[in-house]
Structure formats: C-alpha cells, structure tokens
C-alpha cells in the first residue's frame, strides 16, 4: 500500500510536457489564479460552496486536455485525504452518525480534494524554468527560484529512491523505516553533487542571468484568473 501510494505521488509530481491549453497558459497568472482559489477554498464552510468551487478543478481538467492527469492526481491524494476524513469522523465532536458530522467531514474532505488535485494538475503542467524566469524578472532572487526548480526536479527522484530503498530493505526483512537511512545518505550525496554541478555550470557568478523562456499565453491565464476571482467573489458574498 505504501509503495503504491508513493508511486502514485511520484507520478503526480512528474512533469507532463504535452502541449495543452494549461501548459500554454501564462505561468504567473496560473499561479495567481491558484492562490486566489486557495483563499476561496480556505474560506468556504458549506457543502454547496465546495461544489461551486469544484468548477475551478473542472476548468483545469478541461484545459489540461488530459483526463489521465486528473485521474493520476486523484489517486495520489485519495489515501491521505481519505485518512484525514476518517480520523475527522472518528473524533468528530458532533457524534459519529449525525448530520453535522457528515456535513463537516464531507466538506473538509472535498475542500482538501479540490485544492490538492488542482495544485497537482497545475504543478505537473508547469515548466519550473518558466516559473523561475518569470519570478526572476520580477525581482525574486535566483537563489530562491533555482531552489524551486531543484526541488521540483528532485521530488520524483527522491520518491524513486525511497521506493527502491524500501524494496531493497524489505527483501532483507528489515523494517521499512530503515529505508530512511539510505535514502537520507543518498539524498545528501545527491545534494552535494547537484551543488557541484550548479557551481560548474556557473550559477551565481554573474549578476544577471539570461531568461530563455516566455511566460505563456495571457489569454488562457486571464481565463483562469477570472474563474478563480469569480469563485472567490461568490464565496465572499455568500
């Protein structure tokens, strides 16, 4: 189960380069819309409003033009959110089988689900270099933007290491928590090698870097921002 879950999370974090409306959308506007959506989700407290917010997720799925992305993101978040829902239900102050409990748990689970799935879909359809270039043009230091790219690059690799390490220790009948030891050792070695590479490739030795990517289509970006703004307005009004 753990390996299955890790594999699903790894897949969900893997960059999809397919040319779709979502990959074409302006990277800055894409993340602004996600931030607005995050605010809207954190403000809702009724089931009806969550269903309204789910239209943003539907828009992302539509623009990603890949139902598979939605499916893979759902698989990655299903277990953690399911567990969250279960424990919220068990420890609910309203009793186990009351309307308030079901309403509360369902609202929480759906809020988490639309937020996490939307995040993963946006994440996996964004080229981090594009985002880094956009942020650097707006004054964010390269140390921060490059850390972002590297984290993006290394998440699937570390998850792959964890899976391989768990298999290796399990075949020798160690507890799977032991897998954290080699994974940490490899991650440290990897971090050292990556920092050497950045040094060799001259990162940080010039005050100004050349930006090689364009931020993307304003039109699709504006659609996303408008959708998120509209949903936030609805939530604020209601």
């Amino acid at each position, binding site marked *: 189960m753990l390996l299955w879950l890790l594999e699903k999370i790894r897949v969900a974090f893997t960059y999809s*380069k397919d040319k779709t409306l979502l990959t074409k959308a302006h990277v800055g506007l894409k993340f602004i819309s996600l931030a607005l959506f995050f605010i809207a989700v954190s403000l809702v407290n009724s089931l009806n409003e969550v269903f309204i917010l789910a239209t943003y997720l539907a828009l992302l799925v539509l623009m990603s033009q890949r139902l598979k992305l939605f499916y893979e993101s759902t698989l990655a978040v299903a277990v953690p959110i399911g567990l969250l829902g279960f424990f919220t239900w068990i420890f609910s102050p309203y009793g186990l089988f009351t309307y308030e409990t079901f309403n509360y748990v369902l609202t929480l689970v759906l809020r988490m689900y639309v937020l996490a799935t939307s995040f993963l879909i946006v994440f996996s359809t964004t080229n981090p270099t594009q985002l880094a270039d956009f942020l650097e043009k707006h004054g964010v230091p390269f140390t921060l933007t490059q850390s972002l790219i590297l984290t993006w690059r290394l998440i699937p690799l570390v998850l792959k290491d964890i899976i391989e390490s768990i298999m290796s220790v399990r075949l020798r009948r160690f507890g799977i928590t032991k897998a954290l030891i080699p994974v940490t050792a490899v991650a440290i070695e990897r971090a050292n090698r990556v920092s050497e590479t950045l040094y060799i490739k001259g990162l940080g030795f010039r005050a100004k870097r050349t930006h090689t990517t364009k931020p993307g289509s304003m039109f699709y970006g504006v659609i996303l921002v408008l959708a998120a703004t509209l949903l936030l307005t609805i939530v604020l009004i209601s």
Partner: protein
Amino acid sequence: MIRIENLWYRYSSGENWVLKNINIFLNDGEIALLVGPNGSGKTTLAKAAVGILSSFYGGEIKGKIVVNSVNILEKPEEAFKYVGYVGEDPEVQLVTLTVRDEVTFGPSNLGLPLKEVFERAHWALNVIDSMKLMNRVIFELSGGEMQRVAIASILALKPRVLILDEPSAFIEAPLVRKLYGELRKIADEEGISIILIEHKLDQALKIADKLIILRDGEVVSQRNIEELSFNEILKYQPQERIREKVSGGVRKRKGSSSKAIVKLQNVWYRYPRSQKYSLKNISLNIAKGVKLGILGPNGSGKSTLIKIIAGILKPSKGYVTKHNDLKVGYVPQNPTLSFTRPTPYDEVYETAKNMGVREPKAETWRILKLLGLGRYSKKPVLHLSFGYRRRLSLASALVGKPDIVLLDEPTAYLDFEGKTVLAEILNNIAKQLNTTLIIASHDTWFISEVCDVAVLLYDGEIKFEGETSELLKIPSLESFGVEKPFNVRGHY
C-alpha cells in the same frame, strides 16, 4: 591549454596526500587519456581542475592549475568559464526538467544575449549528434541519452578544457565510438583540450594524443601515444586475454530442464507519462541455478525488466509468477540505497540475523571475505568506493542465501580489475550456493564471463533467448547496439 604544476591535495579528514606532485601539460586541441585503478585519484584531480575541490571539500591544496593564464586554485570562481567537467553520474548533473532548459542553463548563467544562448545550445547538441533530444523531458531519457545531454550542457559553456569522467559508463559501444569521433572533431576544430578519464580504452586510445597513468595519487607515466610501442599499447588493451577467455568459455546451460522459479507471461510495462511501452510482451521462464544475462543497449528495458522481476514495478499488462517462499536478493544500480547500517560488518550481520541465518557471525565473515571486504569490515560504508559499495550490497543480498539474486548494471564505474574480480565472485557464488543470478548489463564481456544463458532486449522486446555462446554468434549483434566481447578490448 592546461598546465598542472606540482599539485598536491589532501582531504581535511585525512593525513595522506590523495594527489602527490602532479605535473601535466596539455596543449590546445590535445586529448589526454587519464587512466588508473579505482581510487587512484582521477576524479579528485578532475575536481581540482574545475575548482570545486577546496570550495566543497576543504582540505589542503598546493601547486598550480593554469588555464588561459588564470590559476584556477587562486580564482576558483573563474574556473567554470574555462574548464568544463562531466562527472560520473549523469542523472544528478541535470538540474532542470527539459533538455532545452538544461542545455541553455550554462550559457544563461553567463548572461549572454538570448540569441547566443540558443546558438550555443544548438551547437552543443549538434556536436554530439543529439539535436533530436532538444524537446524531450529529462525523466524520459535513458542513461546514455542523459550522458549526452550532460556533455552538451557543459559544451554549451564553450570551455577551453573539457574533462569527461567515464563518459562510456552508460553508453553502448556504437555510441561510444560516435561520441569519441565527435570529441576528436571538437578538439581539432575548436581547439578544446580534453581530458578523458576512462576504464575502457579501446576506442579512447584511438582518439587520444597522450596517455597519463595515475596510481595512488601519482602520475606514474605520461607519454604521447605515438611514443608507445605496440606491446605497450597491448598492455593496456588486453583483448587477446579476453578473447582466450571467451573462446574457451562456452558454458552449458544449467537448470534448463528444471522447473521455473520465476515465470513472466506476456509482460508489458509503460512508465507513467510515457507514450510508449518500455517492455513489450515479455515471456520468460527462469530456472533454479541458472545465470541469466539481460543484454541490450541503453533504453532497451533491461533495468525495467529487473525491477519487474524484483517486484519494484508492477507490470502494466501480463503476469509475473514466483514461488511464495522464494528469497530474492536485489543489488540496485545505486548500491548505497540498500545500506542501513554504518559499517559493512554491521550491514551484513544484521541482514544475516533478519534472514534467520544460522551462526550469523561466522556467515557474515565468510561472505565478507568471499567478496574481498574483510579488511573494510569496520570502515564507514559511505567512505567505501563505488566498487566496494557494490560488493557490500551484493554481500548483503547474498548472506540470507537467496534463491535468486538480481543485479542491475553491476559493472558501471568498475575498472577492468574490478569487473574481473566481480565476475569471479559471481561465478564462485553461483557454484557454491546454487543461486540463480539475473544480471542486467550492456557489458557483453561481463555477461559472457558470468552468464550461461542470456536474453537480448531491444526496444523493449526480446530478440534472442538462449545460451550466451549462441547469442555471441549472431552476425547482426552490433545492429542491436551490442558489441561482441572480443571487440570490447582494452580495459584498465
């Protein structure tokens, strides 16, 4: 041009000098082949030349490394402009998510105009004949493709000196030939000096101008290739020895009549976010005691097949059947991923206890000695060289007396001596423990030394299955990206 003068280096943790009075001179457009056994200081020397040794590892460094009149040791921050270094593991040297971003990353850091950034990126990819990779995602690339992208990303910086650390480790022979041809071209046309650190010498000797031999941190020989006599070159090209071993080494298939302990039926596998299948309709019966080699070029699906058999990956379609009580030992491509204890002794002993081995202490010592790890038994595992880490990973996999041991690219980064020792060890183990060995490798020599049966994988499909000696007789073997072992000559 690079001039290394009286270079000494020792790590902050060590008393011994790792590099001792190194003196090397290389003219513009010259290619030097730097050879030496594992642990002789080749990579340390390369890291010194690129200015990262003292910045990252501390320690004491003395001497001079001069490129374009700049002493790298005094101005390490200038090194990246003049010296490019492609290290051993290409995967960690790729710091972005797409090939396009990777190859433009270096020139972008130089702050060059956008047009020049792309001109350099196109030039670098063209030089190593990899323009077709431009729009690919890093995750989709095979080990060999990653290696080429790593080289292109450094070439795009247009260094005056290029240092390549085992560029052939993950590349099959025909591609190595092509890559070396390109290296000779850029040395001649662009005047770039190249230092090539290699264990496989046959192709490298053809393009090199100089041969530098490093042993225990010292340059023991530095000569122009044309000064070397035929016999001296043969010393570094032991093809005759290898040919004898192979021709005398036709082995009978063992266990072919016994019942299969692992059965793959119509197995297909597709990686997430990939359009094509990495394995296509693989059916295989693996019998007890057999030594099976999985041979094929990069990206043919060898590691994927090993992971399917190990149970790390689940087939997209088809079935893998194993006996319920089957004990499986797995040696991953990166052996460090299997270490849970601080020293080799603890690692093997804990495994022995977990696996219910009788007399775990005695068995631990037996396995450690069998694999030549006795004197390193108390050394921290992270201080072991890559070759010894692989041996330890193998020791750990073997101590529980598994029915089947899976090894993924066991020869990567091993020198010829290391490979010979590993081949002997595996043959002994298979004989003594009657263990089934499954080895994925693109090293035909190694497979022919160890395995009695082999499958040839190409583009995810099995193109041949049978005795290794029969596989080697296939006239069109090279068209599948696999070189015959008597051509894999010249190892150091």
